[in-house]
């Protein structure tokens, strides 16, 4: 039976997170945009305590995302709702929150019980812990199959070599000074096998041979670090491989690894929605102050340009939101959502880019000024059109699905 109303507990959680976003994130949003590469430790520690104390908050997301049959039957939906609120507060700060993140999600999705115990238990400790996912390489953008990093077996170890870039929270997860975290690294055990040869490996923070080379200066989401990781003869235990070490004939295994994205893309979409809604809410308030009313139901010919712009922004955001909720809901109900997850990500990434860009324009000279957060939201928003698969990559995935093409037939 179709229903668009949030369950009372999720609605309540949203309320709590909204207050947190408003009181703990908004006040420091500008500061950590200007002070790039500095970490909001007070906020980080508060969030860590919070996520341990209550069942709400981002600490849980990663742990929960990716489960096909979760205990909490609304886990993925709960997560996207939570992420939208936190990103409404500030997208950069949201991304800096400690927790399993993408790395943990991967362990959760394909890890053995032993691995889950060994790595996920850390997120119950007293000190903030991060984990991260390292996929992209300098040479190979979105083309995961072209990964150059290698993992060579040496007795009961794997030896990793290669360079990874654009690793979100790589600094916090990979540098033991920051946390007892870990990085999930994609590498090939057999380059000749193409996609089938690609495996993911768990590397503990501080493992000799892994160094955090640099953190990028970015357009936005500056409170979150985007690290470059270098692996030089980095030795890790054999058991740190996620999934089977075998190289199958087919690239099924790779598909398995890629499946993590079905859980994480709706989360990125949700983060986009939060940024977009922040801008929309602000514009709505400003228009109200200026006496510009939004007349729903008015004849098209009677609308003002700015009024119609606002309606378009609002509709686009809601369309993206419903696609996002659906993708999460499907996963909560054990349905494959690869197509729907990409739809949510592609739509939300594009919409938030356009909505925030328009918001800056609608506010006139003030919109362009750093006195307000609107210009920051525009800078933060754009990342959602890029990471976890660019707009183009997600359109490609959708196209392959609807046309029934393999990655060979459509690339």
């Amino acid at each position: 039976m179709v229903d668009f109303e949030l369950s009372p507990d999720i609605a309540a959680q949203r309320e709590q997170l909204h207050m947190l976003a408003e009181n703990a994130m908004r006040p420091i949003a500008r500061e950590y945009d200007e002070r790039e590469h500095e970490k909001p430790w007070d906020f980080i520690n508060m969030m860590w305590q919070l996520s341990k104390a209550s069942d709400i908050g981002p600490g849980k997301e990663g742990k929960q995302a990716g489960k096909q049959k979760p205990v909490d039957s609304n886990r993925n939906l709960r997560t996207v709702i939570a992420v939208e609120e936190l990103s409404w507060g500030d997208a950069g700060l949201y991304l800096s929150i400690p927790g399993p993140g993408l790395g943990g999600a991967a362990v959760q999705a394909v890890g053995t019980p032993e691995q889950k115990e060994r790595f996920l238990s850390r997120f119950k400790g007293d000190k903030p812990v991060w984990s991260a996912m390292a996929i992209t390489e300098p040479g190979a953008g979105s083309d995961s199959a072209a990964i150059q990093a290698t993992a060579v077996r040496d007795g009961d170890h794997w030896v990793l070599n290669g360079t990874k870039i654009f690793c979100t929270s790589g600094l916090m997860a990979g540098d033991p000074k920051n946390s007892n975290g870990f990085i999930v690294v994609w590498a090939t055990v057999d380059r000749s096998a193409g996609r089938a040869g690609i495996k993911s490996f768990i590397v503990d923070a501080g493992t000799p041979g892994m160094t955090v080379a640099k953190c990028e200066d970015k357009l936005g989401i500056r409170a979150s670090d985007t690290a470059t990781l270098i692996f030089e003869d980095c030795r890790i235990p054999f058991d740190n491989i996620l999934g089977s070490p075998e190289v199958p004939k087919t690239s099924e295994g790779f598909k398995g690894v890629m499946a993590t994205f079905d859980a994480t893309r709706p989360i990125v979409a949700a983060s986009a929605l939060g940024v977009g809604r922040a801008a929309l809410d602000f514009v709505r308030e400003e228009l109200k102050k200026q006496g510009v009313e939004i007349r729903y139901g008015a004849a098209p010919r009677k609308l003002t340009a700015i009024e119609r712009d606002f309606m378009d922004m609002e509709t686009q955001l809601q369309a993206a939101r419903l696609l996002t909720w659906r993708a999460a809901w499907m996963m909560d109900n054990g349905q494959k959502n690869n197509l729907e997850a990409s739809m949510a990500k592609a739509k939300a990434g594009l919409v938030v880019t356009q909505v925030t860009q328009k918001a800056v324009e609608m506010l006139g000279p003030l919109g362009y000024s750093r006195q307000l957060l609107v210009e920051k939201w525009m800078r933060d928003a754009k990342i959602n059109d890029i990471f976890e698969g660019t707009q183009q990559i997600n359109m490609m995935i959708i196209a392959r699905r609807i046309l029934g093409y393999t990655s060979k037939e459509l690339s």
Partner: protein
Amino acid sequence: MINFALDDEQKLIRETVIGFARDEIRPHAREADEKCTVPASLLRRGWELGLVQSMIPEEYGGFGTEHSALTGAVVAEELAYGDLAIATHLLAPRLLTVPLVELGSTELKSRLLPAFCGDTFEPGSAAVVEPRFDFDPSAPATTLRREGDDYVVSGAKCFVPLGSQAKQLLVLAGLTNGDGSVRPQAIVVARDTPGLRVGAREQNMGVKALETTTLDLDACRVPRDQVLAVGDRAAMARLANLWRVGLSAMAVGVARAAYDYAREYAKERRAFGQAIGQKQAIAFMLAEMAMEVDAMRLLVWEAAWKLDRHEDATREAYLAKRYTADVTLRIADNALQVLGGHGYIRDHLVELFLRNARGFATLEGLAIA
């Protein structure tokens, strides 16, 4: 509790309608458009689905299933997927029966509803649109004024479906408030009311198989009980939203029809040594269509869901109608582009989808959820 799944009954109805649209409607779409008429056999078979009778209470001869805007949206999308003109024709009686069931007096219902529970298609209609550049459904130029125990309607309408066939029509008029402002008011008018003149059949770019006419109302006198929910703004707002959701759902159907047609063509058609669907320019167009069809449907369902909870859905329904009108046009246009020169030829249906799609931004009250 968020849920994106239809209930079993809705799934059942949808399956039935999908089959009907595929096997009965679609094969007639082209001929119906060229001949500007819907074959009687289709009306007969369509009537048997009980889409009109279902929500009429049993005491008037209907099946008495509760009215659901969401179910209405599902049905509208699937029928329109087959063909928009045929769908609007088949569902036209609901333009009268739905408001009657919701807002009519017992006396009025027992007088008018039984006619729609017979064995053969019974035309019904609503006269909403007015032949003016600045038509505004929230303030119709057609006037309604009290005169003794009766009301008197005067004005001109257009895009009246089955105008020459319907014995009873729902007419949207403007009732002037004390402060001079106008508020919309729906009334039931019999075609044989003195002063009512059905004009010539209209010729439009699309939806050609559906008969639409102009309508002139020259001081038509209607008894008070044919004025539905007098002064009940909420009821009139709900009616307008039911119209919006009905047309929006049909827009989704047309968009999906265009998308499916283009997708299948793109898989078959080869150029430069590949199926054209293997070209990113084409593949990404199709991907966007798929994404937007889903997005549109969800917006429509949300508005319908709100109507079924009897909450004010003006924002959702209005935004859904604007969005579906714009996006459906773009999808139909891109679908034609996928077919290239072949899309411009009437051997294929995409040009028909485009002509029909262009109507949604303008049309009002041509369908009801």
